[in-house]
Structure formats: C-alpha cells, structure tokens
C-alpha cells in the first residue's frame, strides 16, 4: 500500500512552487506595453502580423501599463521621454520586465553626443534583455523575446527585484537626469 504520508512544504517552498506555476503561465502570455520612442517601433508591425506572428508565442499588445508584463523601449530616449518611461514603469504591476531595443538604449548609439538623449537606459530603470543593433531586425527581436521567456523560466529575469533592492541608487540617477519625477503640463495645470 502506498504511504499517504508526505512531507509538508514549508511556506517558502510552497511560495516558490506557486511562483513556478505563475511563471509558466506568465511566460506563455506576455503582454507588451510598447513605448515607441524611436525607430525601433518599425520592427514591431512585422513581428506582430502574419510574417512572424508573435501571437504564436502568446504575446500580444496591451494598452495600459497596469495590465502589461513587459515594457518595450524601442529606441533613443530624450530626457523628456525618460520622465514618461519612469512614470510608466512605476505604474506597471509586478513582476515586470523591460526589453531595450537598439544600440541607443545600450550606449546612446548614434546619439552619443546629443544634448537631449540619455546614453544608457539601465542607469535609470533595470533592463532584462537588450536587443543590440541599429536597427535590430525582426528575427533578432523575436530572439530577444524568446530569451526573455527563457530567463523567466530560469528565474534570471529579475530586474524588478533589483529595482526594489537598489531603489535609492535608481532614484538618485533619475533625479540627477530629470529633476523631480513629475510630469508638468502647462496645458492642464
């Protein structure tokens, strides 16, 4: 007769199991929030439509940051858009992931000497996957998403945990770049 005795999970183990289950569903239904700042956005229509059909990976667009899993930063970021990026990132519910497209998010790309464009995105918000290139092609972008799914499986896509742990550092960098993180709008104030 089979023993009915089993060792009870500790709370931590049970938590880890639930995270594993959650991650399984999460990585197979990634909803993207596309912040189309630069030219990178042009690679998304072929990735989403029938040519490469992102939907087969369970990925789809999402209109609001509250329901999105992954934030796509598709290109260069001026100080003005960085402020909105930080706003959007902080509105997303956890766990949240960031994919940076193109060389502009890595080191400034061709805008390395611009007076308006920041040079590295991971100085301000944590980035899980970079897709290098100027522009990366659509295959590279889909490869980046598959990498992100693998990282979610291996529990290495923990940028949002790092954001919690190093919140002071990120906040100091953000304040150094954009002053207060608040969107002033002279037309509605």
């Amino acid at each position, binding site marked *: 007769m089979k023993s009915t005795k089993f060792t009870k999970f500790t709370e931590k183990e049970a938590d880890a199991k639930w995270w594993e289950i959650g991650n399984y569903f999460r990585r197979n239904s990634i909803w993207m929030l596309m912040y189309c700042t630069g030219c990178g956005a042009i690679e998304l229509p072929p990735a989403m439509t029938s040519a490469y059909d992102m939907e087969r990976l369970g990925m789809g667009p999402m209109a609001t940051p509250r329901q999105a899993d992954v934030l796509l930063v598709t290109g260069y970021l001026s100080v*003005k858009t960085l402020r909105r990026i930080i706003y959007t990132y902080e509105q997303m519910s956890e766990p949240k992931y960031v994919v940076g497209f193109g060389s502009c998010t890595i080191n400034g790309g061709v805008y390395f000497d611009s007076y308006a464009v920041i040079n590295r995105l991971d100085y301000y918000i944590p980035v899980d996957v970079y897709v290098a290139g100027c522009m990366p092609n659509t295959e590279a972008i889909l490869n980046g998403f598959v990498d992100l799914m693998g990282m979610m499986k291996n529990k290495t896509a923990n940028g949002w945990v790092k954001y919690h742990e190093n919140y002071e550092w990120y906040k100091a960098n953000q304040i150094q770049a954009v002053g207060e993180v608040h969107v002033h709008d002279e037309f509605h104030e």
Partner: protein
Amino acid sequence: MMNSMNNVEEIIAAVEANFDLLSSDVIDKYQVGLDVNKNEIHRLLIFLKTNGWIQLSYLTAVDWIEENEFELVYIVFNWDKAVHIQIRTRIERDVEKASIETIMPIYPGCKYYEREVHEFFGIKFPGNPDYHKQLILEQFDDLPPLRKDFDPLAYAERKFPKRDYPDKFTNLEGKESEQAKRDVTHERVSKLRTGGTKK
C-alpha cells in the same frame, strides 16, 4: 493666363516697389526668398498676409557665427497660389541684445515657433507673453543648444553617464575569453581557404 514663374517675379516686383529689398532669390517656381531689414519685417508680413499669404508655415533661425549674426527665417504660404515665401532678416548675435518684436498680432500661430526659437537660439521676442517659457528641452542648463558655440559632446558627457567598456571584448558572466582559440581557428581556416583559385 499667368504661370507660376510669372507669379514669383510679380511677387518680387511688388515687394521691391513697396519695400527696401536687400536681395531676393528664386529657388524654383514655387519658392522665393526675400532679404529685408529687421525693421521692415512686420510691414512686409502684413503686406503679404493681406495679399493671400495667410499661413505662417515656419519660423526658425540660422546662426552665422563668423558674421556674428542670427538670421531669422519666416516662411509663409498661400493656399491659392502654392508659393512659399521665405522672409529673411539678420539680427545681432549677442546673448543679451538678440531680440526682435513678436509677430503675434499678424500671425498668432507664431507663439510656439517663437518659444522654440528662444529655447534653441536664445533670441528674445518682446510682445510675446510666453516666449521665455520652457517648451521642449527639460532640465537644460547651458547655452541654447543650436548656437554654434555650444558643444553638445561636452554637455552629453557632463549630463548623461556613459557605459564604460573595460576591455575590447566583454564576456558573458565573467567567463574566460575564447578569443585566442578563435584566432587560432581563424588562422587555420584562412590558410586552407584559397578563394576559389588554385594555389
């Protein structure tokens, strides 16, 4: 019946009859440029507006640093004749003295163009209530960026931290570099390869 070239020449003749025209150039049959003095800008714009050039397409400036002058360029457009007219004028380049009266009473839409020009060149527009307000750049604390004596690289280095690359080759997660191994392979392969010709 008049063709468009006639129109352009008629425009120049009409302006020459009424204003002190410094120079003019015909870019093509749809574009004409007029250089006038600073103090005639407003009269000329009123004249053109009453003759059908009702839309201010653009207002910008050019920094001629060697001549120590700013050139203001007003581009107006006529919806019936399809002719763009550029009205150009030169003003002083000095940070304090660079200023010109607003054209808001003539073309109210210039409000934001003037703010933009002030932000990027530092030209003042007395008469425009908001010209000094920030419009596009945020957290900017240097010379106006489109002046030729502004150094964008120095500004970027001061404000935006760079990513530093300690070595020419970076390795994932601190693994040992395999570049030496790759070099050996590459050398062997290039020895074998003859490029399709017999040695």
